[in-house]
């Protein structure tokens, strides 16, 4: 890796890539009239797999597309590297990249109690951008031999071991360490190095555990992740994971040594880059943000809720390699329920299987696109469910129990994420960025995540959040300018009450004072969804009076007044209820879907007569 050489105002071109599991995406940024802007995108299949087994080939191919599209040479004449710095109208000043190719960073996590140290370790690994293959704990319900078989069957890139509070008993964390030792676990990439293990447990057990495991692993002790039960300290473990990811894992992946030599900034796992970008939104807007990265192999969900950041990576929930795992997890009926035309379930399954075995293909027909959009909704829904299971209050911690809290019967196990309190939803990933019409991505996010109350929706324009996340670690101002001007598309605002009524019943009254002084009034019936144009940077005044059984954010039946932000799609009034329900009868379901889709102008063809 080269060191960063220039100040931002001395540079002219920055190249950033994301080596994704399916596609390598190159983005070229350029300083124009003193302002940094996105210039052009190029994409090519990732080449981590046979027969290529060298990620730099995919990077070269993606960069060649960029060169072709704007006629600006970036690659050396022999293609074996990048021209740096920018001189004589050739080359770039800086190159950085994120990566999730070849399975990303695959980790196993272990702790003593599944709802305490193991859960904290899980959050730390996910926070570092890892895919957590399994979480082992003394009380996870499995026999020791089952745990050993499980570890053996995986070959992780790294293990994070936590357990016990500082000064507490060391027996239980030693038990987990013995299980790891017995499994004689081997690293995924090559036998030429020892499997890295980050130890973030009871500091008094560190010496004994190192002695026990030293022969099998490369041991890295860090501060305890739960020094006391009331505190979760994930940062030291997260930092160690990042360092070991570069030192051990990346350097053994096909072509990465070469790629590390090309880059000017440490390679970062894609979810880590995305997470930084999501945090940027929360910081600038000072709001609760829910972010999603819908990828080919994984679905990443990020929440910044009352200042707390949590990331989850749902391995095997994705739109290409893992598309059939979404099918398996949600069931075929949950996928076909989103399709407004008649199609056999078996036909849909075969199409999804064909996508699984040829993951780089894209839908050419509208019907095929709609099938992928249906899967995307379900992947988001499953990803959010997984995320909520992690975004919980610290279990095991002593808490003050107020009378109000006790009366509300709030249980500790519940997620603290309430959709009614999410102000912004931001989406990224190939499927969302490549949706032919932005209203499609807005509705996919709405249907998959089911926002409640008043929620603004943002979208990554051409998938460059990971790129800008890694760039922001060295040039934050450059990254934010591009992020604000070219990456973040303000889709608009969704207004949706929670609760359910009978189809056609009066749901809420809307009075919307538009910026031009015109007042729009609507009587929304339950089951309706409509779209009202309100441009980006425009604000309208909302008065919304819901039915007594519905809540728009001020309480059931209570009127809400608010300022509503526009976007390229505008405002969507969604009176379909929460949770969203579908009629059992197939014909009625299709009729309702066609009504929704045509009201929103979601797709160019109406399938009412199909």
């Amino acid at each position: 890796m080269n060191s960063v050489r220039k100040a931002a105002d001395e540079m002219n071109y920055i190249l950033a890539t994301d080596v994704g599991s399916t596609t390598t995406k190159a983005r070229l940024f350029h300083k124009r009239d003193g302002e940094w802007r996105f210039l052009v995108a190029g994409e090519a299949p990732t080449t981590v797999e046979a027969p290529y087994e060298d990620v730099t080939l995919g990077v070269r191919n993606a960069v060649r597309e960029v060169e072709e599209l704007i006629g600006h040479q970036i690659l050396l004449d022999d293609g074996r590297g990048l021209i740096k710095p920018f001189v004589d109208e050739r080359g770039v000043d800086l190159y950085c990249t994120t990566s999730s190719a070849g399975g990303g960073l695959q980790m196993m996590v272990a702790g003593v109690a599944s709802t305490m140290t193991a859960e904290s370790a899980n959050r730390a690994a996910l926070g570092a951008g890892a895919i957590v293959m399994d979480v082992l704990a003394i009380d996870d319900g499995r026999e020791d031999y089952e745990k050993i078989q499980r570890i053996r069957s995986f070959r992780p890139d790294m293990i994070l071991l936590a357990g016990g509070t500082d000064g507490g008993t060391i027996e239980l964390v030693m038990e987990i360490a013995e299980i790891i030792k017995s499994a004689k676990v081997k690293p995924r990439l090559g036998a030429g190095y020892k499997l890295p293990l980050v130890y973030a447990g009871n500091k008094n057990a560190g010496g004994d555990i190192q002695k026990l495991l030293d022969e099998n692993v490369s041991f890295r002790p860090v501060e305890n992740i739960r020094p006391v039960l009331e505190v979760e300290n994930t940062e030291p473990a997260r930092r160690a994971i990042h360092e070991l990811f570069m030192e051990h894992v990346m350097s053994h992946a096909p072509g990465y040594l070469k790629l590390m030599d090309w880059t000017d900034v440490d390679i970062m796992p894609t979810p880590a880059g995305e997470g930084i970008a999501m945090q940027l939104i929360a910081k600038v807007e000072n709001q609760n943000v829910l972010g999603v990265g819908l990828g080919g192999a994984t679905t990443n969900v990020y929440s910044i809720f009352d200042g707390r950041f949590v990331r989850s990576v749902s391995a095997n929930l994705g739109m290409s390699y893992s598309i059939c795992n979404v099918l398996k997890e949600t069931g075929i009926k949950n996928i076909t329920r989103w399709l407004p035309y008649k199609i056999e379930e078996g036909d849909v399954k075969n199409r999804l299987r064909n996508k699984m075995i040829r993951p780089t293909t894209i839908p050419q027909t509208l019907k095929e696109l709609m099938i992928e959009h249906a899967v995307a909704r379900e992947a988001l829904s499953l990803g959010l469910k997984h995320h909520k299971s992690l975004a919980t209050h610290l279990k095991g911690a002593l808490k003050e129990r107020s009378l109000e809290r006790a009366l509300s019967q709030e249980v500790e196990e519940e997620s603290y994420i309430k959709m009614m309190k999410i102000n912004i939803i931001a989406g990224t990933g190939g499927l969302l960025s490549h949706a032919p019409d932005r209203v499609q991505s807005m509705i996919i996010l709405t249907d998959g995540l089911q926002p409640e109350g008043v929620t603004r929706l943002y979208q990554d324009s051409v998938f460059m959040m990971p790129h800008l996340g890694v760039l922001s670690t060295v040039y934050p101002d450059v990254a934010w300018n591009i992020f604000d001007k070219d990456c973040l598309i303000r889709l608009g605002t969704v207004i949706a009450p929670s609760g359910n009524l009978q189809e056609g019943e009066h749901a809420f009254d809307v009075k919307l004072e538009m910026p031009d002084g015109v007042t729009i009034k609507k009587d929304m019936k339950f089951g309706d969804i409509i779209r009202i144009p309100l441009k980006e940077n425009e604000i309208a005044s909302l008065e919304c009076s819901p039915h007594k059984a519905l809540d728009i954010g001020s309480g059931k039946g209570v009127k809400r007044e608010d300022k509503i932000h526009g976007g390229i799609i505008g405002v969507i009034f969604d009176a379909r209820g929460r949770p969203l329900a579908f009629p059992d009868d197939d014909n009625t379901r299709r009729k309702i879907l066609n009504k929704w889709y045509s009201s929103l102008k979601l797709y160019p063809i109406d399938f009412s007569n199909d």
Partner: protein
Amino acid sequence: MNNKKKYSSKAYAYTPGLKVKSFEVVRKTRLLPLPGDIVVELGSYVGFDTIVAETKVPGDPHIIKASSLLAIEPEELSNYLVKKEGDLVEKNEILAKYSAFFGLSKRVVTSPVKGYVETISNSTGRVIVREPETNLLIKAYIPGRVVEIMPYEGVIIETTAVFIQGIFGIGGETHGPLSIAVDSSDELLTHSKIKDEHLGKILVGGSKIDYSALKKALEVGVKGIIVGGIDDDDLSKFMGYDIGVALTGSENLGLTLIVTEGFGKISMSQKTFEILNDYDKLEVALNGATQIRAGVLRPEIIIPHRENVEAPIKSKSLDIGMVPGTKVRIIREPFFGRIGKILSLPINLQRLESGSRVRVLEVELDNEICVTVPRANVEIIEE
């Protein structure tokens, strides 16, 4: 920045095409999972079932909560042990015993298996007994010459052969004589076409096999099936579960299945069908192992040449990418399975029926009709 062109002279290969080759120098690396012994000589010839390497695999560990069973503190365990680390033990042999009150209170801990004491922990009070090592034998899988020996690790075997990759498979390595069970590449491989005489054979079907035919094949004792397509429902029913991600090969279903084209009813590619027909009744090796991610692995069919076959003129390499004239197969609807030649590679993004704007290529199909498809939806046919 004024060098903009309308057409690419070439596109850098997208999906690598599946290999369907009458001649390929096949090299198979046969690796031990742990260091062991190589039992063949460099340059020697091996058959399908020749053992080429062997090693000892550690037995399963069994963790015994000794201090709990003796009702003592973990750090006291060493006072009550009758075995030490490294000792061999028989099943039910005593590992530790506790006696108090002049022998009135007695407790013992015994080994649940035959093996040896691997670890005794005074921190946790647990004893780990590991079962004896077992022998692991590595077979040649394909007949050929041993061309490289990697001491303690494995060997490389080389042969010339017909080499065909499928798109998806289940089941591991097997071998047997080929038997063509259908008359054409678009015919269904049905229940009634599978007969007792197919015991131990590798059956070649046409466009699809269903659940009842798979079940019949299993009853008859068919070792392998090569077929164009299969419905997801039939595959799931046969396997007993749904596959989430394509990572297969370790299934133990009694036969190996290789799908050459995809899911649904899809005629086997004519070239594949013809080659397999040419080698009817000959011994073939196949492996259904498929991994679409983190090291792509496609299922394979290997028919070793029985005599010296001359290598054909070197085929075009994938490295050259796609250029006008390159033969491609379309791998997605609405032209799924059609074969054609690239006419041009427009640079500018074009709008598809789905509404997406993507890079495309123009393909002339066999019937001289020209279609536009996304560049991502074709694979190169190696010739």
